[in-house]
């Protein structure tokens, strides 16, 4: 029977609530946020968030890369992140001298205007540490130019037995890569034009070899501007040939992939450490909701309890509780919050506790004045006359009247809880083990994102904070309008 009453009440409430379009927008947003939270492991990568603080995990990802979709809006196309697992392998075994020569060919089809940030060859080798292999690497450009990048390098490993070695060659990290590329281009130009063109000599004079981006040289046409970075892109097939000379016929190489570190990455780009911002932001949703709701519910609950009890009991208890409430209310929240977050362990639960400690007093003051009015009602007098205890009166008669205000307050307090936590995160005082939007913004500020115009790092986290805030403000406003009718717009 009770549930039928409740159902009718809820239906009435809903038909009243529906009238406030802004409230409905709020509900839609809330549903969206909840869906985002639940779907997070499916639309983003949880491994990314688990490894957020592990630097080595992000070695394969480009740093400060804008999102992939900017290619749709730009005439200039940037190279996308790719993992090329197709390769051709060619083995040449010489049993007599116990030598095996293996050639691995990776082909990369470059159709962009802006080259990738790096090319990384990954393979696993197995050999005896006492007779390490030698390897060379050369690149064949679409214009036929074959440039030697590494010549006869010995793979030094410690140990005396068969070792499994994970090889990882990043082009931009090869020794003297710039000089080799420049020499390779020069040689090709010489062959083609019978002498080195003047413009090349001039450019070579002007540039500072260490300041050149090897990717830009590698992927540009061998014409004017190639060394100064103003040339045109050379599109087509690039082949990377890795040649390993094994000193034992039984040694093996298993190529893994050719990693193309894109100039763009993912749905939301990467931050200064190469971390995937889409995953960070999507998984931040659950924390924002938890922090906001938990803080708000707890502080409102405590505030209502304290306020109503104080108002109802009156007398000395009231005075005492009021004094304490006023002390808390008069304290400037942020400076003290920052102070305490600084002194305590950096944990999200500590932050929530602190937020609640500073949050309940406002609610207490209002509910106290509500209780002061409510306790004058006749039915309260009647209840007292029949011997009801204070606790019973408070919980049965007064609390239910305060509930509507409490609900509206819970909703309206969520944005400030989230903003305050984001502020603490931004200052580096929140939990370092979880990824919150405030923390992403902290990294953005520290990583010079504002200076370098890395808008995909700065805008989305703040936007999400604002979105969650707005959701609860909209809902709170509508709740307030329905449950506490006072301001009638005539």
């Amino acid at each position, binding site marked *: 029977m009770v549930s039928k009453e409740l159902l009718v009440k809820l239906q009435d409430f809903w038909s009243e609530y529906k009238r406030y379009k802004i409230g409905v927008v709020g509900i839609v947003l809330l549903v969206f946020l909840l869906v985002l939270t639940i779907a997070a492991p499916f639309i983003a990568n949880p491994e990314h968030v688990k490894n957020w603080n592990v630097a080595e995990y992000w070695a394969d990802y480009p740093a400060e890369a804008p999102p992939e979709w900017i290619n749709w809006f730009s005439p200039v196309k940037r190279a996308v992140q790719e993992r090329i697992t197709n390769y051709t392998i060619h083995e040449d075994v010489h049993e007599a001298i116990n030598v095996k020569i293996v050639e691995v060919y990776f082909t990369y089809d470059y159709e962009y205007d802006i080259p990738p940030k790096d090319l990384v060859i990954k393979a696993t080798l197995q050999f005896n540490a006492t007779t390490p292999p030698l390897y060379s690497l050369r690149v064949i450009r679409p214009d036929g130019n074959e440039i030697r990048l590494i010549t006869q390098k010995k793979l030094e490993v410690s140990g005396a037995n068969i070792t499994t070695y994970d090889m990882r060659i990043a082009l931009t990290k090869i020794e003297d890569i710039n000089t080799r590329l420049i020499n390779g281009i020069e040689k090709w130009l010489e062959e083609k034009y019978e002498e080195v063109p003047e413009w090349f000599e001039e450019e070579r004079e002007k540039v500072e070899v260490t300041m050149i981006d090897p990717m830009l040289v590698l992927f540009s046409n061998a014409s004017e501007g190639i060394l100064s970075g103003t040339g045109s892109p050379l599109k087509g097939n690039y082949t990377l040939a890795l040649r390993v000379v094994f000193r034992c016929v039984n040694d093996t190489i298993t190529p893994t992939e050719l990693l193309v570190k894109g100039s763009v990455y993912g749905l939301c780009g990467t931050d200064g450490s190469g971390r995937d911002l889409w995953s960070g932001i999507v998984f931040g949703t659950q924390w924002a909701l938890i922090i906001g709701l938990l803080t708000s519910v707890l502080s409102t609950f405590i505030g209502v309890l304290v306020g109503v009890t104080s108002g109802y009991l009156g007398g000395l208890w009231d005075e005492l509780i009021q004094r304490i409430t006023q002390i808390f209310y008069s304290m400037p929240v942020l400076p003290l919050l920052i102070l305490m977050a600084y002194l305590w362990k950096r944990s999200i639960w500590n932050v929530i506790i602190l937020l609640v400690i500073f949050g309940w007093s406002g609610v207490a003051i209002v509910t106290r004045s509500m209780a002061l009015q409510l306790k004058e009602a006749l039915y309260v007098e009647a209840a007292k006359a029949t011997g009801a205890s204070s606790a019973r009166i408070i919980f049965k008669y007064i609390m239910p009247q305060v509930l509507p205000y409490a609900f509206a307050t819970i909703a309206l307090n969520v944005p400030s809880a989230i903003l305050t936590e984001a502020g603490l995160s931004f200052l580096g005082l929140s939990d370092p083990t979880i990824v919150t939007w405030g923390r992403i913004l902290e990294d953005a500020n520290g990583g010079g994102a504002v200076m370098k115009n890395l808008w995909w790092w700065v805008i989305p986290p*703040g936007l999400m904070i604002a979105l969650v805030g707005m959701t609860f403000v909209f809902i709170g406003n509508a709740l307030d309008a329905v449950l506490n009718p006072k301001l009638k717009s005539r």
Partner: protein
Amino acid sequence: MGLGRFLVVKTINAAIVLLVVLIIVTVLFIDVSEKELISSIEDYLRTLKPPQSLPPEKVREWKEQRRMEEYRRYGLDKPKWQRIFYRVRDVLMLNLGTATHMKSFISGSNKVKDIILEALPNTIILFTTAQLIDIAIGLILGLQAARKVGSILDRSISLIAMISYSLPMWWVGMLMLMFFSYRLRWFPSSALNVYEAIRHVSNPLEYIATWAYYMALPLVTVVLVTFGGTAYVTRNIVVGVLQEDFVMAARAKGIPERKVLYGHVLRTASPPIVTMSALSIIGSLGGAIITETVFTWPGMGRVYWIALQQSETGVLIGTTFISVFLFVVTLIILDIVYGILDPRVRVG
């Protein structure tokens, strides 16, 4: 109760709050600040050379004696509650000590008092100016919205207010910097350079103009985030007042609408509006820490943040004390003003 008793009660309340907060902060910091003191004493002791005549065992004794001397000098030998008491008393008498690394910008002094006194006016200038502009805009918009309830203006103001309530002020600051400072180069990126700039200024007009130039972006940020809320609250208050009987009576008497609005309505609406504005200023001073850091605005918020990073406990205690003091004083003034304007409040 009479006005006099009301004032006294409020003032005592405020003093209690101030004291309690000061004690809490001192207790929290006493360990950290003493750790520093002890390590600097140890550094000093290391440079001391014992007299040649002493045998090695006696050297250690001698060093202990010197250590005790130093401890006595700084009062470290007394029981904890006494040390807290003396610290609190020092702060109350504005004897705030010296900072270990921080220095004030212009004079280079490392006395905590000087550091704070240099930064405090900056925060006040920025946030008070912002607040004044905010109130001006908010009042005008709010009044208009209240007159035409349900209009597009009214609904936009509600929407803007709700959206800006959820915006982190410091994030908006970052966006402003990114766009107007670094991209378009219209405004400077670090407000700290203002001190460099005003050195070359000759006349007061240029002085003000230079400050204004450096203050422009932070000012716009603060106003942008707060004007919506102010307008919305003003609108609500004015709507409430417009429903009062005396307004209807005034209109019935034939008083022109403008006089009704600006004469009667505004006067009734001003106490709550003033309260709200004062509370806003206080609220923004709290958020000032982060906003000032983003813009490198040389105000109290930034001083607080730097002190925190460098563990300058003297500065931290001093700044916290000053900000709580201002906060509490503003609340008292508000209560008093409200008490004078609206006698009903004195009974609650």
